[in-house]
């Protein structure tokens, strides 16, 4: 039997697969997909052996720089990218947690200056596996359980 696609194929563009279903909208926010005019389809709460429940996004005519796409590693560390040209997968990529996180995450410390003034948050990733972020300003650690995307 032919496998039916839950989200229809695209001609050219990027497919982001294996996003935890609960973090789909965070991925959309981080990549600013809510502000672009490219044709885009997504599916959520799809069955996944790895994640239990996953989401997928397909964006036409959009190709990401590594630096940009790695930002989603915070909320979708297992995400896989397929680069599509002429309905063919021409490249596969995995995301990698970057060394520095700028302007995406919120500092967990309620007494941190970034929660009081207009300051772009900056973090150093001190543990890439557990995604522990050290605030450049207050020097406190924000762990994955307390991670809030701005």
């Amino acid at each position, binding site marked *: 039997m032919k496998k039916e696609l839950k989200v229809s194929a695209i001609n050219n563009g990027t497919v982001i697969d294996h996003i935890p279903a609960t973090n789909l909208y965070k991925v959309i926010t981080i990549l600013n997909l809510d502000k672009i005019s490219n044709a885009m389809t997504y599916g959520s709460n799809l069955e996944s052996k790895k994640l239990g429940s996953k989401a997928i996004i397909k964006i036409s005519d959009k190709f990401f720089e590594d630096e940009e796409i790695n930002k989603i590693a915070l909320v979708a560390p297992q995400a896989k990218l397929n680069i599509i040209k002429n309905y063919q997968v021409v490249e596969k990529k995995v995301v990698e947690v970057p060394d520095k996180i700028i302007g995406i995450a919120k500092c967990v410390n309620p*007494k941190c*200056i*970034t929660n009081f003034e207009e300051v772009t948050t900056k973090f150093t990733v001190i543990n890439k596996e557990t995604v522990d972020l050290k605030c450049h*300003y207050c020097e406190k650690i924000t762990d994955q359980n307390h991670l809030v995307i701005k």
Partner: protein
Amino acid sequence: MKNRSLVSISDYSKQEILRILELAEEFEKQPHIDLLKGKVIASLFFEPSTRTRLSFESAVQKLGGGIVGFSDSSSSSTTKGESLNDTIKTVSNYADLIVMRHPIEGSARFASEISGVPVVNAGDGANQHPTQTLLDLYSIKKTQGKLEDLNIFLVGDLKYGRTVHSLLEAMSMFNPTFNFISHEKLQMPKEYKLFLDKKGIKYYEHEQFTDIISRADIMYMTRVQRERFSDPIEYEKTKNTYVLRNEMLKNTKENLKILHPLPRVNEIHQSVDNNPKAYYFEQALNGVYTRQAIISAILGLK
């Protein structure tokens, strides 16, 4: 160090720390010189402070510099809703260097990024207080004649006390042995113990004062704050467990000195004050020399 802000003790290398201590020694010999003539230092204290503010201002005046600023935020435009961003940008037009204490953590790093002149952090909430650490190091070096291979006892609130954390980090450059004495709820946080493990530095934890203090070269006392305990009875019990009394110092080493960042509440009994091993008031005086050293190094005058 020239033109560089001092926000966190880790901003300085070991060599830079030693250079500050050397300069502080020079200023102790000759505290009054007109090094800062024609310079203006802004002293912005958004939160009250006795020792830190007065010793900074005394340091500037002994060097012949001028001071502008405020000693609590109610006498600044902060009360009109001015942001820290705007205050710092304005003040950096008026001064050659800004000394700032602010209750919000990370405010000093932020200020150093937007200010046109160097910023010296005089305490940003519970985060960093590097000039205190430098004066602590100066006090240790002065009383022990060295910084290397000392047995340092940290006593009291080791969980929340920012001074003990910065001191631990800085002393770790000098091959110390640490002994921690604290209530189990106020123990040294795991991240600092991991830091010591990584560096291969030995440390021992105790829940009360024992004969072990006979090994101490430095005993660094801190205040246990009532607000750290949800149960007031527990606080009352704890507060009295960690009181250092004169008779406890009988079998301690000749060279032992007792340090405290002050203010103290009751953790050092007044009977200790006259013991030659008590050093906390001299330590506060060392703050002036150390801050003279920091300011003149940053302004490139030394």
